[in-house]
């Protein structure tokens, strides 16, 4: 069994969670038109992950293989419903903004992936830690994307802080770029896809820099157009 530190780092590393392997993309794209909403869903997902991992890990030994998956689905649905109800209670406006993407944390494949791959094999505490780290990794991507899009789109950061932090959050909005700046494409669906594309390309690039060259399997194809390759 790996150490907690390792579990944490493993979970945090982005390639463990969905987004980079292209799971859980929908919420990633849908709620990242601002940093705050991205952060909010990220936190909600983290909480859901922690508790569902915990529960799954607790019951794991007691379940027959053939009912495991439906049982997990039930558990996760319950956890998410609780989060939904609580969010409606305490963060009603935020809930209105996030809309169906709160209940959709259920299908967010990241959870299923983690529950099945980690929590079924580990005891409750490491499972929770793993859930926390994975959620944080996901959260990081959400925040990164939210930051990029909000900055590009409106030139601000932390707008709508009141959604999470109540009235004082209202004042946190940071106008990074001048007031008349605005590039609404970044806030619209095309911008969401493209920003994520650039983010992933950036990570690929960093990876390849770190690996010191081309990544295996991505070697330049033979016999491409001649002048392109030879010069």
């Amino acid at each position, binding site marked *: 069994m790996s150490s907690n530190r390792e579990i944490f780092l493993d979970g945090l590393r982005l390639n463990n969670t*969905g987004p*980079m392997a*292209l*799971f*859980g*993309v*929908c*919420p990633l*794209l*849908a709620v990242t038109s601002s940093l705050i909403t991205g952060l909010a869903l990220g936190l909600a997902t983290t909480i859901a992950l922690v508790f569902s991992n915990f529960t799954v890990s607790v019951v794991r030994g007691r379940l027959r293989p053939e009912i495991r998956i*439906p049982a997990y*689905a*039930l558990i996760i*649905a*319950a956890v*998410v*419903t609780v989060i*939904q*109800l609580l969010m409606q209670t305490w963060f009603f406006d935020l809930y209105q903004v996030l809309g*169906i993407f709160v*209940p*959709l944390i*259920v*299908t*967010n*494949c990241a959870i*299923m992936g983690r529950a099945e791959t980690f929590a079924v094999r580990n005891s409750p505490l490491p499972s929770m830690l793993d859930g926390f780290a994975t959620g944080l990794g996901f959260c990081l991507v959400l925040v990164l994307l939210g930051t990029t899009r909000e900055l590009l789109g409106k030139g601000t950061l932390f707008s709508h802080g009141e959604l999470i932090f109540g009235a004082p959050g209202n004042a946190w909005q940071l106008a990074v770029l001048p007031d008349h700046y605005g590039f609404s*494409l970044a806030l*619209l*669906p*095309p*911008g*969401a*896809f*493209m920003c*994520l*594309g*650039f983010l*992933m*390309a*950036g990570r*690929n*690039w960093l990876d*390849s820099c770190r690996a010191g060259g*081309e*990544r295996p399997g*991505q070697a*330049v*194809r033979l016999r*491409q*157009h001649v002048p*392109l390759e030879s010069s």
Partner: protein
Amino acid sequence: MKEYLLILVSTVLANNFVLARFLGVCPFMGVSGKLEGAIGMSVATMFVLTLSSASSYLVNRYLLQPFELEYLSILSFILVIALTVQATELLMRKTNPLLSRILGIFLPLIASNCMVLGVTLLNVQQQHNLLQSALYGFGAACGFGLVLVMFAAMRERTEYAPVPLPFRGSPIGLITAGLMALAFMGFTGLARL
């Protein structure tokens, strides 16, 4: 009549589920490597989405609402979807083994994408009746299939293009999806006719 047409136009074009609403992006990015796979996935989605929207409407209308159990909606919809997928698979295997063999591999994939649950939730949110719900699901699947198939055909081209290394694979796929979303913005306003 017109309102049903509007539902179709809206779900397929103006508010396309993948490109404008961000539902079902995972299978969109994942299955689109080959055109044949994309077509299979689209057809399978059409079956499941139509059926599950209709049946979750029934559950919501005749079970959850009368007993004020709305807080169980996520739970029950998940079960309904799983059952629908199972039922579709069984039915298909009995009636049309060939189709079942082609579409079989896609069915489990569908159950785990957020479009199906999203559609059922949106049906409740928008207070659709039975026919509207079914149509909404069908339209969502059509819109999904339309962009999926086109995306797959485009990917066959980008696959062999000298795309800069960091962009190979998913990044260029996402950028393509972004440009598709851009093109689909041309349908803005269509949903009111």
